[in-house]
């Protein structure tokens, strides 16, 4: 039973990371750079939802939706202000720019809210017991919200015109232009979706832990790890990477003190990437 409990916890931990990892690999696939600002966007999303939830007294669901839309728009605006001007530069230039963006948003949050720890206005609920298995209310919320979001993203990518345009631009921007795809529009939509996914994940992280200016930072490495493990350029594989990471971390506590669990997960990643540099679940992309 202990094993099942750890498995459930691991899956939920993984799912929390899945959305930002997905967002990260989106920007990587379409814009070809590692968006270092993902952590700061998480923080920003959580505080936006906090303001809507606590100050404006919206129910958390609506606050999360509002934050998703606002963060989507902020991402689109950031693209216009920063990344768009650097289009065509090397991915390192863009990476460095995204670090700047990260500092900017993080310090806006600090300036307005200070360093104190905050929480959403939600009622504390008892965990649900299924035999010996304990499932938190937040875990159920996380599970259903991420699964819905993931399904929507999958549907978007494979079944819609916008999704095909996104994949086309990811595959070959020049050819996409020749086929009539307006890449500026596709990029703007990509940023909107990235912002939305990040904000939703931020609310889940805030529910799971606390809201503070460094909350996003703490997730940067694990989010990158999940995306790389899945295969950076294949968005849905990032989800698998995140899940695996979460489960391994939790199961590692069976054999080792829990302080080492992140270490075990990263050792596993290092090992896997030695044999499959394109990621565990991604297929080697056809580049010839």
């Amino acid at each position: 039973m202990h094993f099942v409990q750890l498995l459930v916890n691991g899956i939920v931990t993984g799912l929390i990371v899945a959305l930002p990892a997905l967002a990260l690999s989106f920007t990587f696939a379409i814009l070809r750079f590692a968006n270092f600002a993902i952590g700061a966007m998480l923080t920003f999303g959580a505080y936006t939802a906090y303001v809507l939830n606590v100050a404006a007294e919206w129910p958390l669901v609506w606050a999360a939706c509002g934050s998703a839309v606002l963060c989507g728009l902020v991402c689109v605006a950031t693209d216009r202000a920063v990344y768009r001007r650097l289009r065509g530069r090397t991915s390192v230039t863009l990476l460095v720019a995204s670090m700047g963006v990260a500092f900017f948003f993080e310090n806006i949050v600090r300036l307005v809210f200070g360093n104190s720890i905050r929480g959403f206005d939600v009622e504390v609920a008892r965990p649900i017991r299924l035999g010996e298995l304990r499932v938190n209310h937040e875990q159920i919320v996380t599970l259903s919200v991420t699964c819905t979001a993931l399904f929507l993203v999958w549907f978007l990518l494979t079944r819609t015109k916008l999704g095909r345009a996104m994949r086309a631009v990811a595959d070959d921007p020049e050819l996409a232009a020749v086929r009539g795809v307006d890449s500026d529009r596709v990029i703007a939509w990509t940023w909107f979706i990235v912002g939305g996914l990040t904000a939703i994940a931020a609310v889940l992280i805030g529910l799971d832990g606390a809201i503070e200016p460094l909350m996003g930072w703490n997730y940067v490495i694990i989010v990158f790890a999940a995306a790389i493990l899945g295969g950076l350029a294949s968005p849905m594989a990032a989800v698998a990477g995140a899940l695996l990471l979460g489960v391994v971390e939790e199961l590692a506590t069976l054999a080792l003190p829990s302080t080492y669990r992140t270490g075990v997960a990263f050792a596993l990643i290092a090992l896997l990437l030695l044999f499959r540099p394109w990621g565990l679940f991604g297929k080697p992309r056809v580049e010839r």
Partner: protein
Amino acid sequence: MQSLQIEGVCAGYGGRDIIHDVTVDVPAGSMVCVVGPNGSGKSTLMKSVAGLLPVRMGRIAIGGLDVTALGAPARARARLAYVPQERNVFRNMSIGENLRMGVEFLGIAGAAFEERVQRVHALFPELASRHRDQAGNLSGGQRQMLAFGCALMADPAVLLLDEPSAGLSPKYVDEMFEAIGRVHRMGITVFMIEQNTRKGLEHSQLGVLLVSGQVRAVMPAAALLGDEQFHRQYLGGH
């Protein structure tokens, strides 16, 4: 049928022109082939006509409509189709999706779409059975066919071909030119650049010789093929 006019076009990369004052008049319904040694600027010319490379000076018009200021997507909507030499299919998408991408962003769907898929399949039966396969797994020849098919999906008025025979085995080269001929007879204006000078000119009405980014000669393709001096310099004396 529509014509393609290239008038006094200068274009290049990083502020340095590669093609200088290029003027080519492609009459409606004709097939015109640009030949020339490596590095003569054929690809640069093609990219500027397709809208992927901004033109520094000059004018490009499709059937009298000035498209100089338009980017590649807008030119595609003006019924200009372009088949790049390499990187000409979406490798991580299926063949069916590739064909769909040929029309989806030009505003064609429904019955017209199915009909056009049938037309492409009739032209290249090899593609019909592999609708779900990933395009990146196709052989070079099949890929070229798919790229050609995708361009045809858009029902273009003017078709740009960037070295249609590049990297193809002799069997595929003949098949390719056969297909180009059939498409041309449907009334599509064809403008191509070709490394395989003989094949390209044999199938065209007009030949353009481009050397060091400048047009050296424009004459009937047969005449260019028969020109002694041209032969000696560019066909290696055969």
